[in-house]
């Protein structure tokens, strides 16, 4: 589904991601673990076209998307749920969802998607006339995910979906991601602590200061003492 090859990314002259390669297979859930500042967001933002890479290539469904603009990638089925949710706080909940469907021109499709989302997230339906800024953190995360699902993506990318949420809400988020996976959506997510992420993942990578230092299946991660100590709280 997604193949990142020797990706190098810099801000100005400062290189922060060095020759990173990884693979996300169709229908799988892949987690990239990494401490704050490791370069996780930089990689994700580059995949979705917000930032240009210096070297390397990104293939999506076999097609080179290294230099493709964000709006084209949305149409192709790649959606990012950004770090910190980034809800449009002054737009209503419903407007946030409509913005999520911005590239979709077919009004009926938008309506159907919206109804599906409201079925899945009754809280959002209740609050659809409220502005985004009045939602709780957990509700905002649900809205950020629902907003991304408005175009029916094939690849859903999430940047620290558990950031700043109470443990009980985090459980809900990952339960939701499992459900989304079951509908056939491929998921790539990054986290600092990967307890929850790992439980739903097929494969994991560890990123340290812009380098992939480990990759393996869920069990291989759990068998590596160093990794467990650094990125897992309580397994």
């Amino acid at each position, binding site marked *: 589904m997604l193949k990142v090859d020797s990706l190098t990314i810099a801000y100005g002259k400062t290189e922060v991601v060095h020759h990173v390669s990884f693979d996300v297979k169709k229908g799988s859930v892949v987690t990239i673990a990494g401490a704050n500042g490791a370069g996780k967001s930089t990689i994700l933002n580059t995949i*979705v*076209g917000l930032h240009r890479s210096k070297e390397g290539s990104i293939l999506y469904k076999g097609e080179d998307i290294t230099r493709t603009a*964000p709006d084209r990638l949305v149409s192709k089925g790649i959606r*990012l749920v950004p770090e910190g949710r980034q809800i449009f706080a002054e737009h209503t909940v419903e407007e946030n969802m409509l*913005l999520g469907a*911005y*590239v979709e021109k077919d009004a009926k499709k938008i309506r159907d998607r919206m109804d599906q989302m409201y079925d899945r997230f009754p809280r959002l339906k209740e609050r659809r006339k409220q502005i985004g800024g009045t939602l709780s953190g957990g509700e905002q995360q649900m809205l950020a995910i629902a*907003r991304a699902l408005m175009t029916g993506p094939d690849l859903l990318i999430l940047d620290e979906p558990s950031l700043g949420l109470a443990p009980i809400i985090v459980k809900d988020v990952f339960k939701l991601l499992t459900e989304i996976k079951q509908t056939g959506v491929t998921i790539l997510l990054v986290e600092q602590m990967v307890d929850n992420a790992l439980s739903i993942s097929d494969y994991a990578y560890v990123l340290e200061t812009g380098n992939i230092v480990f990759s393996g299946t869920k069990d291989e991660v759990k068998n590596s003492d160093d990794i467990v100590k650094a990125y897992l709280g309580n397994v």
Partner: protein
Amino acid sequence: MQQLIFGLANGSIYALMALAIGMVSSTTGIVNFAHASVVMMGAMVSWWMMVIYGLSYIPALFVAIAVSIVLNIVMYETCVKKLGDLQDNVGWIITLFGASIILDNIARMLFGTEPQAFPYLFGGKMVTFFGANIMLHELMMITIAVVIGVVYQTIIKKTRFGRAVRAVAFRPATSELMGIKSEKIILSCFAMAGAVAAIGGALIAPITFASYTMTYSIGLKGFAAAVLGGFGNTKGAFIGGFILGLIEAFISIFVPAGIKDSISFVIMIIVIIFLPEGIMSAKFFNRNLSAAEKV
């Protein structure tokens, strides 16, 4: 009554200028210091079309609108976009002031230094309105400005385009993630501001006469109105324009004309000190909003 209409008519021009300045600053965070010059260009082009090519008022205005839209787009491409991240640099202050000086001088070369008479709408016909003699043109100024303001707010609140404008104004990068081309939205805002500039120019020119300096003092008052409304708050800026016009008209009953022009700046300074976010941030306007809604 006459003072009221006079104040509102002047206010309508300040309102249109403040609205256009707000359109641009809401999505880019920049203040278009060259806006007054584009208003002037709009008026001069209208005048030219009428005098040299014999067009009537409305067709001439359409040509001026087209020219001002192009001017604003060129200005965005050359003075703003080339600078890159506008949060990180304030180069636009220089480039836009520069653009304004260039436009003023082009106008001086093309149209001369002599202020030119500019026709009123309806040939300057007067009407009796609540017992006062009022020029129909002034009523049209107010009506057109209000229509533009209401149409703009409706577009911004209700349409897909308007949602995108607000999104880009609030979070440009996240808007890109939604598939919105921020750049295209910003360009549209510059274009709309250009159109509004030309209309304002053609409406005020009969009163100020058409010349390359016609917007020097009006332009500053447009900025004062924008400050009054809070930069980037198009609704506030628009209302600010009318308030400024009214205050001026009524104060000028009591003070000599020379002092009148400084009034708007005294008001502007007071507003900056006490309500730095603009009049719309005053408690009076936000009684029913919870804190979170003001994000």
